[in-house]
């Protein structure tokens, strides 16, 4: 590295931690302000010997730590209890105990990151890669086994002879004059740096490519991916036509499958008759399935008042005269076939369950439009209203 003739600092190295503490004390007592100590490991009591004021770094840590805590709490409060409240494990929307670990982590994360970044930028003046102390004998020694003190030339008391004398009386092991580096610049387009950057890029991308595209396809890493079965859409060598997915054999139906004659018709001229009686078990099944599949749109009591209201073509109430006048078979048809924007549920809900839902919808409708005679029946105890 090229150096100018201008003196940057005078540096001295010492043999033991005791000597360096002693040196730091004497330098500070002599009145120098702009000096530094470099040691291979932290030496206890150095702050005091150098008469340093307490570092301001703690305030950065505190500020960011506290803002981490506040941010985490506000974030969880907003997302979990205001914007998209969901019941999780029966806990309240604002479940403070569950938020504490996350708050703690974010606090620690922001506190530590801000400490490190604050240290590098504010205190070390990052990147500073042409600091004049770099590449000196002094630096090599103090990062191995010597303890160094350096007094910078811009100190108001700086005087070569005095400092030389001071270091000699302190029994310095060596004294070194350090000159300014030629002009501080940050050569991004330096061939060495660019080569290094390129090498890093090649190694990381090559490594990633190798792992994701090669390594994971080698045994034994690949054992999960290749299994002795045909996946959907896969070619099969077993069948003559090489289709992994098989077509139905002409003229057959799958086991348990019941063909539905009115599929795809908007207003079928005829509908099926309800084959199930509304027994207690059947209604319980219908209630369970209704609450699973229908209530998200039609509401728990078929009033058309679910959360979906306003976000979707409004699912209608099932208590309208129109819906009440539907035959059982018509409701079954709507579930099976769908109607306009309401999709078909034939794939999700079995035939028996669909009829059970129909029966349950009938119960809901009847409950909303009870007749006087129903009330009499309840009073006589023939119907149990609680069930």
């Amino acid at each position, binding site marked *: 590295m090229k150096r100018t003739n201008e003196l940057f600092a005078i540096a001295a190295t010492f043999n033991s931690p005791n000597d360096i503490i002693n040196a730091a004390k004497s330098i500070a007592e002599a009145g120098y302000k702009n000096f530094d100590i470099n040691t291979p490991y932290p030496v206890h009591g150095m702050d005091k010997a150098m008469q340093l004021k307490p570092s301001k770094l703690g305030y950065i840590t505190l500020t960011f730590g506290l803002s981490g805590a506040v941010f985490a709490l506000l974030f969880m409060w907003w997302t979990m209890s205001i914007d998209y409240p969901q019941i999780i*494990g029966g806990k309240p929307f604002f479940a403070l*105990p569950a938020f504490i670990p996350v708050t703690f982590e974010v606090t620690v994360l922001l506190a530590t990151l801000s400490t490190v970044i604050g240290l590098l930028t504010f205190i070390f003046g990052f990147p500073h890669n042409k600091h004049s102390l770099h590449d000196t004998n002094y630096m090599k020694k103090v990062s191995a086994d010597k303890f160094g003190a350096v007094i910078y030339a811009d100190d108001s008391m700086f005087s070569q002879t005095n400092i030389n004398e001071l270091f000699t009386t302190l029994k310095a092991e060596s004294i070194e004059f350090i000159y300014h580096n030629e002009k501080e610049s940050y050569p991004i387009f330096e061939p060495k740096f660019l080569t290094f950057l390129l090498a890093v890029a090649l190694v990381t991308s090559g490594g990633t490519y190798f792992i994701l595209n090669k390594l994971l396809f080698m045994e034994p890493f690949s054992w999960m991916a290749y299994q002795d079965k045909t996946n959907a859409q896969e070619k099969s060598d077993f069948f003559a036509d090489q289709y992994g997915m098989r077509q139905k054999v002409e003229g057959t139906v799958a086991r348990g499958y019941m063909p539905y004659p009115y599929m795809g018709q908007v207003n079928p001229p005829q509908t099926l008759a309800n084959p199930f009686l509304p027994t207690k078990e059947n209604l319980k099944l219908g209630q369970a399935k209704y609450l699973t599949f229908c209530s998200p749109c039609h509401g728990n009591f078929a009033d058309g008042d679910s959360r979906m209201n306003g976000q979707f073509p409004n699912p209608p109430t099932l208590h309208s005269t129109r819906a009440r006048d539907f035959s059982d078979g018509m409701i079954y048809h709507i579930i099976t076939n769908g109607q306009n924007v309401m999709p078909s549920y034939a794939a999700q809900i079995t035939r028996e369950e669909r009829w059970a839902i129909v029966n349950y919808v009938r119960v809901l409708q009847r409950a909303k439009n009870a007749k006087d005679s129903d009330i009499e029946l309840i009073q006589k105890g023939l119907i149990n209203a609680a069930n």
Partner: protein
Amino acid sequence: MQQTNLEYHKKELPKKLEQTGWIIFGAGVILAVLGFALDQHRALLNYLMAYMFILSIGIGSLLLIALEYVGGADWSVPIRRVVEFLAAIIILLPLLVLPLVLNIHDIFHWAHDEAVNTDTLLKGKSPYLNITFFIIRVFAILAIWGLFYYLLIRNSNAQDKTHDQFLTKKNIILSAIFIPVFAITITLTSVDWLMSLEPHWFSTIFGVYFFASSVVASLAAVTLFVVKLKENGYLHPKLVDDHLFSLGALQFAFINFWAYIAFSQYLLIWYANLPEENFWFLHRWQHGWEFLSLLLIVTHFIVPYAALLSQPAKMDPKRLKFISIWILCAHFIDIYWLVMPNFEGYYFSLIDLVVPLLVIGVIILIFNYRSKKSNLVPIGDPKLQKGLDFRVP
């Protein structure tokens, strides 16, 4: 080394300390007898609390000694004798435990055959929770602790005369064996004496909780003694505030550790919400106990945390003295919170103050007794000079 020896001259602790110890202890005994006359069961529970309080400080101190040896710490060498004197509590424990062992029936629900026979859960736990095995465990653990105490202290004292470095090495090995033994025995002790007060409860972290409490309490006791003795010139003249800083920092760390463990226990039980676990906390959040629970959080965590947060606070003797006493009070609340809600119909009463009186009395007396037999500084320890040179970076 020679120089260090010359600077320390042993000064006997004042007669007044011993007198104070006897007065406090006497007052405690009188109150205990009075309490016994008024309400036998309550007196017994008070005694249990006092026993656990003393035990936690004694065994916590022994752990601190072991940590110094195993961790190779230098800074704590000049104050190790204070810790050793507090650990001497351990030799009293087999004596102190007798009234409890003789009254197992009045303390533990599981000790009643009628109760166990009609209770599937207790029946399942009875291979562990039965009187014979309980008594064996109690005395076996106290014997093990006593043994380690005896060996460690014997070596430490011998070093004062012989300056033999090999004794330090011996103690390092002993300590390394002691630490895992400690982990197991403190867990068993806490489960036996505190957790089994509610034998239907399950909490696997309970041992760690009690361990955290014990270390916090013993650190507070050590700090209090060190600051007091240092102020009055009984310790080495070269002991400085930097040593106090280490004590303060350790206290701060363990306050956090306690809160961390206490919260972990709560969080897991709250989250899973299983009836066989949550009733313990639910009960402590009802029937008036919620105030004690809140008080515990504030006194045992929030206040000490805030008080010890900054660096100057950790080395300020006044602050340390205050917060040590504060933490010891909080430890009392902690033990109260663990014990009393398990029994129906008990709320705080002035009689409960017998606990701190007995504890303080016993600690002062044993400390004073031990201080007569050894130097207050381990003058033969090879690390003493390095320890005295310790400074905060």
